[in-house]
């Protein structure tokens, strides 16, 4: 039941408790108590809306992907520095990577200059950080399994056998 609820909510966070109960052959009381438990356990970490900001001309958002190489600390490895980085509000996402660098930092800010300032003055100056390489996102085509530009037009005939 937990996994089913998670999969449904991951696909559509707008499901009402009542609809989930119908779909899962359960009751609203049981479904809400499971969801509350999942929230308590930080398995459900939040509910957000997927927005294509590119379409909102008055609001500019700049996103960058920063590859970071760091020196891991004795005892805590990469975790201590990663936890510290994740506290910056500019950091939208942070992943430990295998391969040619250690951390992927997704940085989001209002202007290019703000991103540059963050990388040069906050990120690169941390002792353990060896190198950074910053790549700016030019256009987002797909995010969270959702293709942005494609407006779904129902091409089917209105009635068919």
């Amino acid at each position, binding site marked *: 039941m937990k996994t089913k609820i998670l999969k449904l909510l991951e696909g559509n966070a707008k499901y009402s408790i009542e609809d989930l109960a119908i779909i899962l052959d359960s009751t609203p009381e049981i479904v809400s108590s499971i969801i509350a438990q999942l929230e308590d356990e930080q398995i459900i970490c939040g509910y957000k809306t997927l927005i294509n900001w590119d379409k909102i001309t008055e609001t500019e958002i700049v996103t960058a992907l920063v590859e970071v190489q760091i020196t891991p600390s004795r005892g805590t490895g990469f975790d201590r520095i990663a936890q510290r980085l994740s506290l910056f509000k500019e950091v939208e996402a942070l992943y430990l990577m295998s391969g040619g660098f250690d951390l992927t930092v997704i940085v989001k800010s209002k202007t290019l200059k703000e991103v540059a300032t963050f990388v040069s003055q906050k990120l690169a100056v941390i002792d353990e950080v060896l190198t950074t390489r910053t790549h700016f996102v030019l256009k987002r085509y797909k995010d969270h399994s959702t293709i942005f530009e494609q407006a779904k037009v129902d091409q089917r*005939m*209105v009635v*068919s*056998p």
Partner: protein
Amino acid sequence: MSIANKISTKVATMPPSGIRKFFDIVTEMGDAISLGVGEPDFDTPWHVREEAIYSLEQGKTVYSANAGMLPLREEISRYMARRFDLVYNPTNQILVTVGGSEGIDVALRTLLNGGEEVLIPEPSFVAYMPCTIFAGGIPVTIATKSENDFKLTAQELEEAITEKSKILILPYPNNPTGAILEKSELLAISEVIKKHDLIVLSDEIYAELTYGVKHVSIASIEGMYERTVILSGLSKAYAMTGWRIGYALGPAEIIEAMTKMHQYVLMCAPTTSQYGAIAALRDGDDDVKYMCDAYNNRRKLMLDGFRKMGLDCFEPKGAFYVFPCIKKTGMNSLEFCEKLLQEEKVAVVPGDAFGKSGDGYIRCSYAYSIDELKEALLRIERFVQKFL
């Protein structure tokens, strides 16, 4: 000279499909929410489209073997064994048709001599009766009942059989009712079929879309394999309606005879579509499961919605339709559908478009997004409350 007089009587006297009439009404309305569509709302999975595009890039645009490309027939054979425990020899027991519809037509024309009777449970897909008549047969309809969840019973079948009966069309999972037949029910019907030496055309186009119960083909019942032709295809399960790829599976003698007819009438199914179909059957099990799960969620919401608004609605366990009873409103199906369309701009299909016994019911497809379904349910409820 009147050109109209030159049309064959068989065709001229065939009434247009009830669906067609309703289609015209809905089209005039313009901006209605439609629950009238008998095809998936999903796009064909990209890996299938990509395979077909690649075949075009490679210039693979020639005719295929009449029965369909051998690699496709082999894939169908593997698929049937994997999904339904049925073994069909790709060389002489599988015919790739132009959609499931061609399979119905070719099977009937291959098997029927003039005056032989075809037993057709109703409500059911609109093409069985016309195809029977075009093939020179006599359609004998069997009205299935809501109290039996629209399942054909052995007794109803027995009562409809005459010495002219030759073929039983078995349309389960059913369009428009969503009814399915389970193994125990198939066993009972099979006894009657064997006793009267009938051939079964089992239309299993919705076989992948069952909920909570796995589809059982009548061909897997003892003594039925040798007298069953399965008609199916990729349209519903893989969201490939426009590709027009179906298949017929059965005893070699029948499939070879059907292939003879198919080769003169159609030559072969579209080659590009056949390449897509190979990819779908080979790599598409997860796609089918994903879509089936989504349909099941919507099915439950629809069933709950209709029951909450006070309409009787049996639980459909297959296809992607619910078939609620609207008799309580005091209207017949067509009146209900026309009024609903005019007052609330929601299009559903009158149940009697699928046979007289469908009157008093409406077919609502749930091949739509949950938001669309919920909006439609709200409007239908507002409409129904005026009459209850």
